[in-house]
């Protein structure tokens, strides 16, 4: 019989349903242990070291994997030191053969893919496997483009893999001449031609040792089952939401550095010198898709540190001296560091209007007030770009500001536009700029540029698009003007110079379609030169050569700001290196008192 208690049943159902799938899971890392809580502003794409290219993956992956080399945590200028390698490589006279020893007794983390689930010892074959895997055409790899035509025989291997059905059926036993295992702990690598950036390239996580067992065991799921040798291992990863990494008990162990740059001792960065690493037992990475909750969480002490994203810059820093009163009350600290990067408005040199119209390009450059731009968007904390090699890189030209490539002179710009109109034969048609996003920062950036263009009598139409569309359009040369930026992955400047080489035409990195035979000749030369004053001179010459042609308006170099709570110890940002968690330390007691502090402020 139907009774009137169906709604009571409904309520019961509501109570029962959810318990079916979420029995309260207990966390592996208890609150009592030392847990570092970090924010990621986007989800990591993968934790497969072989296919990592985005910053967020590397931020997490850096703690799990160990490439051969890395940068010193404290020393500046940045210095490469061995990580899993045993000492720096022996390089042959002709700079073509590298002999590298690796540390003995490095174990992979324990994982079911190994016999007995015990991590086995790492040999050089695991490094060779990483190289070969990258070359595997069936394993579509983001990093391959950078290794084409570098190592002897690797390109042949790339072609060889074409015949197989899929990634896993490729027979890796085929030898590559350039990758030789002299014994289990020594590898000899032969280059096609000198590659001066080779050692810093070996510091890239994508060349960390990979266990073939793991790849064969997990297949596609290797993305979310990293098997590494680093101080931490993945405990849980909920895609798009959070990651937990915990101490890897198989880690070989390391000590906190005993020397740094001057001032580090005063900052307390050497307090832990010589102590056994790592300090933190687990790291919780939370992925924030919206800015507001990330910011609120940091303020409430639920995150230990947070970088200030460029579009929210003004929130924390209100005065020239740095932190706002509100932040200081909460014992929040600020650390800033030069992040070698450059932002620009690029011109498509293939474009009819811009391509053969130097006065126009120059006029646009003169029309933009970089200081004002930095004032508005970064509270005056960024550095105006006079060239494209950023401060902090080894061939940065301290004299370049004297060349006046980044002058603001709207009057002269107007004159130049008259000249440009003569070349054009008509008044300048409205220009179109592609913007790689439609968020608040981008629209405001766009508005600023439109205004600057208007002031000198040009019309700019801004097309705000999503990143993938932008990338596709730019790579296909369909954009006219485009806003873009580049961050350095190593102190070497060859990568930014490469953006102007004819052989790197888009879809390569030369999105400007800038072509200059003289420059190309110098580039060929510079590619094989090892760091030296002579090379720096060459690079600077090349930089000026490009600047004279105005293929882009270079705007600013970023200075990054990181906020952290005072219980978070040993915080020193690093421009190139990942895997810094092992140095971090948390004063748990202090953190627990933060709630009281907040209450007292309120």
């Amino acid at each position, binding site marked *: 019989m*139907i*009774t*009137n208690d169906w*709604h009571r049943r*409904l309520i019961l*159902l*509501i109570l029962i*349903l*959810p318990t079916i*799938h*979420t029995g309260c899971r207990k*966390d592996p890392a208890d*609150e009592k242990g030392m847990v570092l809580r970090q924010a990621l502003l986007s*989800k990591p*794409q*993968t934790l497969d070291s072989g*296919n990592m*290219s985005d910053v967020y993956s590397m931020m997490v992956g850096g703690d799990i994997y160990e490439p051969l080399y890395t940068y010193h945590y404290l020393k500046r200028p940045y210095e490469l030191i061995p990580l899993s390698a045993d000492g720096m490589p022996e390089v042959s006279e002709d700079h073509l053969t590298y002999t590298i020893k690796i540390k003995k007794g490095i174990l992979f983390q324990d994982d079911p893919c190994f016999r007995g689930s015990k991590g086995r010892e790492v040999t050089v074959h695991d490094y060779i496997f990483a190289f070969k895997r990258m070359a595997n055409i*069936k394993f*579509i*790899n*983001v*990093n*391959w*483009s*950078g290794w084409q035509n570098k190592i002897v025989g690797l390109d042949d291997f790339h072609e060889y893999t074409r015949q197989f059905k899929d990634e896993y059926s490729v027979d890796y036993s085929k030898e590559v001449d350039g990758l030789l295992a002299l014994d289990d702990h020594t590898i000899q690598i032969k280059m096609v031609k000198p590659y001066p950036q080779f050692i810093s390239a070996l510091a890239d996580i994508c060349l960390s040792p990979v266990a073939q067992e793991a790849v064969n065991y997990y297949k*596609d799921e290797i*993305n*979310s089952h990293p098997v590494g040798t680093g101080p931490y291992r993945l405990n*849980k990863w*909920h*895609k*798009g*939401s*959070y990651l937990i990494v915990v101490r890897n008990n198989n880690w070989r162990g390391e000590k906190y550095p005993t020397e740094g740059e001057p001032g580090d001792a005063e900052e307390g960065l050497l307090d832990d010198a010589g102590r056994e690493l790592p300090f933190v037992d687990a790291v*919780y990475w*939370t*992925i*924030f*898709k*919206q800015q*507001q*909750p*990330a910011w*609120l*969480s940091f*303020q*409430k002490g*639920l995150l230990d540190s947070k970088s200030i994203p460029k579009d929210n810059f003004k929130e924390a820093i209100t005065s020239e001296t740095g932190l706002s009163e509100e932040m200081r009350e909460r014992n929040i600290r600020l650390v800033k560091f030069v992040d070698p990067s450059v932002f620009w408005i690029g011109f498509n040199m293939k474009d009819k209007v811009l391509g053969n119209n130097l006065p126009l390009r120059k006029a646009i450059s003169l029309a933009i007030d970089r200081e004002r731009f930095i004032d508005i968007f970064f509270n005056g904390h960024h550095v105006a770009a006079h060239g494209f090699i950023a401060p902090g890189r080894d061939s940065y030209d301290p004299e370049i500001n004297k060349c006046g490539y980044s002058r603001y002179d709207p009057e002269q710009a107007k004159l130049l536009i008259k000249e440009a109109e003569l070349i054009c034969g008509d008044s300048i048609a409205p220009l179109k700029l592609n913007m790689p996003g439609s968020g608040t920062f981008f629209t405001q950036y766009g508005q600023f540029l439109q205004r600057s263009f208007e002031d000198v009598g040009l019309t700019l139409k801004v097309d705000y698009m*999503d*990143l*993938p*569309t932008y*990338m*596709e359009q730019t*790579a296909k040369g369909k954009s006219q003007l485009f806003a873009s930026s580049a961050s350095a992955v190593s102190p070497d400047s060859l990568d930014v110079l*490469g953006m102007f080489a004819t052989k790197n035409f888009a*879809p*390569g*990195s030369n999105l400007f379609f800038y072509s200059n035979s003289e420059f190309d000749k110098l580039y060929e030369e510079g590619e094989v030169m090892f760091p030296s004053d002579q090379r720096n001179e060459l690079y600077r010459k090349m930089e000026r050569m490009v600047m004279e042609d105005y293929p882009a308006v270079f705007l600013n170099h970023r200075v990054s700001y990181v906020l952290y709570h005072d219980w978070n110890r040993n915080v020193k940002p690093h421009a190139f290196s990942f895997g810094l968690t092992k140095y971090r330390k948390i004063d748990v007691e202090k953190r627990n008192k933060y709630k009281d502090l907040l209450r007292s402020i309120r």
Partner: protein
Amino acid sequence: MPAYIIRRLLYMIPIVFGVLLLTFLLFNVVGADQAVYRLAGNNPTPEILDDIRHELGYDKPLIFSIDSQFVTHVKKAVTFNFGKALDKEPIIDKLKNGVPYSLALTVPMFFGIVVTSVSLAILAAFYRGTWFDRIILLICVAGMSFPYLSYIIFGQYFIAYKYDLFQIYFSPQRSIWSNAALPILIGIVVGIGGNVRFYRTVMLDEINSGYIRTAFAKGLSTRVVLFKHLLKNAMIPIITNTVLTLPYLCLGSLLLESFFGIPGIGGITLDAIESRDFSVISTMTFIFSILFVIFNLISDVCYAFADPRISFD
């Protein structure tokens, strides 16, 4: 009944086909090449791009061929083998991980909305024309008029941050309930307005009918008349509307999940839209549409339980 269900399931086929065709046209025509550029890395050569296109099958004919892209698309869907997302995670794994969280968010929200709004609607209909009815209606209309995003942003800022009543953001250290409490609450508040208004008109249709008068004439109490006689008769529009509410729940969870960091499928979908991961979007669309068809079927079957006059023969 089984014959009816089978007939309805067969009726699903053209619809599912339509959905697949639409998603294919929408996304494969536009989106395929973007993925190629993404996978190619920093400084690729055109040859590398072609290699990738070949490996992903983007060089095959679009529709008119045995192994055309469309056939692959359909094959993937009907075998529930959706392939990999741009981040190389199998899409099916994404679903498996996300569904429990989404359910933990939407199921309480859903029942919260239905139970509250039906009860309020019954009361409003019973006291129709009085100040109680008017205030309920006004609150509902006001509630519907307040923008959804403002609910979320103000809610997160004031309720969670300023007054510290709920969690600001998802944290794996806490139970899903403490994480989901505020989004559920916001979802319910947002959802009630329109529903109460609709259910009230449904109830008004019914409350003037003869059987209600009869029930009162029998000497039954108001509670029994409203919650037994009235409610059971209003079930059909309620069930129908409940199914219609599901897309809004889906919208709800999309933004709520993204603001509160709940790792459900709504967040995954929004992510995919932002990163233009078309294989994920089309899978989600497909899955949701299948769910819709099934829910529609369930609601039709429910009609039979709610109303003896309906038969499936």
